[in-house]
């Protein structure tokens, strides 16, 4: 019958990964609006964008079988 374990795994990973990437990007945008400690806030913002970009690269790595098969 239906493989509930792998379904729950897919559901958890999907929801977690989507939330993580969106939270990172949103946090980056939020930090762009911080007026105090401008330098620190901007560094934090770019760090958030960089981690989100790394997640995108990981996605591409997953998509191309030549990289991991």
């Amino acid at each position: 019958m239906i493989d509930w374990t792998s379904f729950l795994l897919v559901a958890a990973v999907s929801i977690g990964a989507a939330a993580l990437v969106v939270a990172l990007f949103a946090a980056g945008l939020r930090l762009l609006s911080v007026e105090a400690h401008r330098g620190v806030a901007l560094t934090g913002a770019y760090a958030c964008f960089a981690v989100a970009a790394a997640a995108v690269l990981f996605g591409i790595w997953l998509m191309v079988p030549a990289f991991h098969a």
Partner: protein
Amino acid sequence: MAATLIVVLVIVLAVFFDFTNGFHDTANAMATPIATGALRPKVAVAVAAVLNLVGAFLSTAVATTISGGIIREGPGGVAITPSMIFAGLIGAVIWNLVTWLRGFPSSSSHALFGGLVGAAIVGAGFESVDFGVLLTKVIFPALLAPLVAGVAGFAATRLAYRITRLPVEKSHRSGFRVGQIFTSSMVALAHGTNDAQKTMGVITLTLIAGGALPTGSAPPFWVVLVCAVAIAAGTYSGGWRIIQTLGSGLTDIKATQGFAAEASTAATVLASSHLGFALSTTQVASGSIMGAGLGRRGGRIRWGTAGRIVIAWFVTLPASAAVGALCELVARFGIAGVVIDAVAGLAVIVAIFAVSRRRTANTTKALEVDVALNSVMTRQERRAAEKKRGDEILAARRRLSDESSLFELGQESSR
């Protein structure tokens, strides 16, 4: 001679199926960035087409089954004859075109499975179909895909709004539009790596069945090339009706929601294809958009449209199975039957395109203006006018999907 004719017909039809697969699924990736003005429509479909082309080359696997185990094919089971594949493909193509005409995002893979199931029932009997696999691979995932993606889209949208909520300062939510370009591109690339492969598999297995290739061969380069180009061309031609349904028919999408929705689609599609529980990209994308629609305070879903889409998902399999079964019934009369199928199928396809020309999706009025202007303007003036109108539409979309604070809006109007 007759066998060669069927193999050639199957290849031609499979390539056309790949094309319909492309334009049916452009919307999954590009409906939300077009709706929020993150990308111009033409640019969006061009980006999606290039990524589908690249994706098709990046991922080619040795095809082992056509139907993914739904039909008991291979050793110990039934042999899927080229005429069954042909009948199944006609069912899939016609159902894809009917749903496109009505603007429904429906799964192309499910249409293909449906067509093959119908043809196999007529060609090899009821016991040739594994209904257990059908239930676990098609029916249940169709219920679960929008659920998972919907929850992901809802949670991501809530989170994005919560994090960027600002009482006084200038908000940067319009920055989500930049993010949308990346998340949508991910979805388009994933589509290319997944879907072009299916047609390559169908063509390769038909060539193997026809004796042109040894058993277990990888798709020849020309097959990869033709499939990649067909899916890219289909994507570039843009299924505008489906883009309209997903971009503005289900819910009014803002940049924040669009970003959250496409991020959820990309995450769910990648997770499902790597953790062993296959979900349909189309159903995932529709679910994410609905979830994102519910996630914004004041966001509303048009449940009538959503309900019709879900009905279309469940009708997809039986409807294409019925067409596939009918075609296989005719094809059993030998080569004459196959030719009758081919001619009738072509007639239906042409008829659907004729109907689509008569009811052009929402652009009829714009076209009338164009025709009137074309008669008095030079080409350069016409291009300038088109560009101006395009810019106006883009600006309007961005304004509607923007959530910058009211202070900024005031500044804009006083400028």
